[in-house]
């Protein structure tokens, strides 16, 4: 350590970890307009920006059977015009105040966000209110947008990751609400009419089902005034019908979407797991960090760092209102496909019992989740999206402030037990998108039975 000594700093050991101050989420102030629209604000005055995020508590899971893609299609139609304004006019009005409209369709929610310099916030919000409350939903725009969305589906056929995602949710959920991605399918998009769009808009976009979140350098009173002036006249239609229901399918253990000539295999391994409301939430977040939620996770160290067969692998519990998937995602060198499957399944299986979460692994996972927690709440957008989660899943006001203490209190046993409760190796379904011979000896040795061929067209 001669170099270390001459440098005047101690390189014989890393500096010790020092205490991190307790994180406190900004106060969220809540009001409700007379029409039922929630207005939630958080103050953030680092820069003169204001972000609005309208959260509607229905998403792609509310698509009726046979009309998969309706929620996203309807939302896509909102900025196609309102009142006398065409789609081009709407875009022009937003652009002139430098406002960026962003739309996200999830399984359980539609998020419509707009961010602008605070001096333009009122104009930006008014425009968003106009397109949400009174979109034109014109027939001619509808046909153009439908063609664009069908073209998008055509292009997704080129993308192995997208093929895998779409095929995998179909395998896990079938016709149940989470069995399709928001874009929907060719047949369902083809059969939707503009009347379906108008009806969906009417029953879904209702003030009592929505929350307007604002984060920026304005006060709560000012935001409420803007919200009242923009959304005060919004009334809703009839409430949506009950959630569709269908039994979950029992997929084959090994499924292959053939893709000749593919240099990489795109893999998904998982099963339907658990909902956001589970009391095991924090324990599962920690378990996932150890298993596949960070660079130094078990699966990434195994497949990337040790074996060098992938650029990266990750696992996730997708926490939703109803049980969502647990899924491992990885793209691997074609020649290593069977190896990647067996190693992934081994890791998922072993964390439950054979190789329980160790104290040191948990410490790393907890540190990664907690010590840098504050950096998740640096921008208006990050804060607004965090508040949106509160609105969406009815999280308590102190959820983010209490997150760190809750995670820190976890023990290795609790985390291992949660993993054991919610990971079921015998139920894992594997999907391969790639140029592989699923009938080969290598695949035979996986013991997953005869691979089921999935045609990309059936997705």
């Amino acid at each position, binding site marked *: 350590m001669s170099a270390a000594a001459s440098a005047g700093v101690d390189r014989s050991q890393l500096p010790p970890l020092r205490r991190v101050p307790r994180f406190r989420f900004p106060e969220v102030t809540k009001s409700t307009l007379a029409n039922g629209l929630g207005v939630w604000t958080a103050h953030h005055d680092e820069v003169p920006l204001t972000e609005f995020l309208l959260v509607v508590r229905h998403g792609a899971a509310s698509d009726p059977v046979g009309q998969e893609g309706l929620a996203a299609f309807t939302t896509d139609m909102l900025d196609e015009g309102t009142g006398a304004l065409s789609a081009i006019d709407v875009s022009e009005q937003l652009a002139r105040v430098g406002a960026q409209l962003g739309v996200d369709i999830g399984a359980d929610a539609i998020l419509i966000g707009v961010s602008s*310099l605070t001096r333009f916030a009122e104009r930006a919000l008014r425009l968003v209110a106009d397109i949400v409350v009174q979109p034109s939903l014109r027939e001619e725009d509808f046909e153009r947008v439908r063609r664009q969305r069908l073209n998008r589906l055509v292009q997704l056929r080129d993308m192995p990751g997208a093929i895998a995602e779409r095929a995998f949710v179909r395998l896990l959920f079938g016709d149940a609400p989470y069995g399709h991605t928001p874009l929907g399918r060719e047949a369902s998009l083809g059969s939707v009419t503009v009347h379906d769009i108008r009806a969906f808009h009417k029953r879904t976009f209702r003030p009592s089902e929505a929350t307007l979140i604002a984060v920026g350098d304005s006060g709560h009173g000012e935001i409420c005034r803007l919200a009242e002036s923009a959304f005060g006249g919004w009334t809703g239609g009839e409430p949506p019908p009950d959630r569709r229901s269908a039994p979950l399918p029992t997929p084959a253990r090994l499924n292959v979407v053939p893709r000749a000539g593919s240099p990489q295999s795109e893999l998904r391994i998982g099963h339907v797991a658990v909902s956001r409301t589970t009391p095991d939430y924090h324990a599962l977040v920690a378990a996932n960090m150890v298993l596949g939620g960070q660079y130094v996770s078990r699966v990434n160290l195994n497949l990337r*760092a040790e074996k060098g067969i992938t650029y990266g692998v990750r696992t996730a519990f997708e926490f939703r209102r109803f049980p969502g998937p647990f899924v491992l995602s990885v793209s691997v060198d074609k020649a290593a496909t069977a190896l990647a499957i067996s190693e992934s399944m081994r890791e998922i299986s072993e964390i439950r019992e054979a190789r329980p979460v160790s104290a040191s692994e948990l410490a790393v996972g907890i540190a990664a989740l907690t010590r840098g927690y504050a950096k998740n709440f640096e921008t208006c957008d990050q804060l607004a999206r965090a508040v949106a989660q509160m609105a969406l899943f009815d999280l308590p006001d102190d959820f983010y402030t209490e997150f760190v203490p809750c995670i820190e209190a976890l023990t290795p046993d609790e985390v291992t037990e949660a993993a054991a409760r919610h990971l079921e190796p015998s139920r894992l379904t594997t999907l391969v998108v790639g140029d592989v011979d699923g009938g080969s000896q290598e695949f035979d040795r996986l013991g997953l039975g005869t691979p089921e061929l999935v045609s990309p067209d059936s997705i």
Partner: protein
Amino acid sequence: MLLHEAHGCPIVAVNIWYHVGSKNETPGHTGFAHLFEHLMFEGSQHHDSGFFQPLQAAGASLNGSTNADRTNYWEVVPASALELALWMESDRMGYLLPALTDQKFVNQRDVVLNERRQNYENRPYGLASMAMLATLFPDDHPYHWTTIGEIADLKAARVDEAHEFFRRYYHPANASIALAGDFESDAALSLVRAYFEAIAPGPAVEPVRRDVSLDADRRIFLEDRVELPRLYVAWLTPAMFAPGDAELDLATDLLSHGKTSRLYRRLVYEDRIATDVSASQSSREVSSFVQISATAAPGHSLPELYDAIAEEIAKLAVEGPTDVEIERGRVQAETQFVQRLQTVGGFGGKSDQLNAYNTYLGRPDYFSEDLGRYASVTHESLQTTVKRCLHDARRVALSIVPTGRLDLAMPESAPVVVS
């Protein structure tokens, strides 16, 4: 060494730029700068194991990236872990080689080959950038190849070249450090001195300079596993921060940003001949380029797209932008600049911007002047720049067509080989 205090969030960003990128490579050795970036995460003399582990355990997020001009590394840490980040960064700047073994080298080369397959070879239209760069820039130009490099070069790379590369480019004289966030400047500066001052500067790195021009239109095509053909049209444009650079950023915005933009409106909204269109400038140190790409809607052809794009460019070159477009461009630029100020670290955060200005211009305080470049664009300056730079006889047109459908390429296109 740049310091910027920002006390809004109890975090600190550490950001280091090494002024080396794929432009410093030579033919036969492409992909090396990026491969080397991977090696920087594999341990150094006093911490000879993964770079991620101790930092993630301290709550850091971290990453690095390589482009044609530079390689950057960053950590965002809780304020109390600043010293750890400096320890780690200084150890790999000062003491990497004793820990850089052949085994690590070979392993990371395999990871990079995986990255290449995943992000280029197995991605639709993923080889477009290779074909375009190889045609815009001559064989021996430093922008002729992509950052990921050629497969044969990667396979031929050796660990001793990595040692040589490190000695040449990874030292204080070729680096810039920026800290931004919740710290006191005096204390932070003392820490940086303690950890970095003893590291010896290496040899000065000569700037890469190389004039380049296209003297004629070039047309090329590439087959790929895609459903819909796509057209790319590109022009060489002035270097980053040179006169005309800001004008072309605004020009590409008004051409393709949002539904109100000229090309979206024409190709997607009105004529409906394209499923999507985008235009952007890749601003680089030696020479930039503007690229427009559009995917043909089913039933429509690349020549239709080509003609429509050419017409819109010609119109902009003759008539210039409208007053509304200029005003819109300015407001959007202001908004984007303010948005970039929201984060202290990461790609594009304040510490990254400080290093960009410092590395490229030697002017870390250039932010306001940079915004001023966009505020001072006029109708006339934008029009003349478009006329001069997006010239109708000095373009490269790349057609990417479904395998076996050469008939869908632009007429008179030559095949292009990418490895």
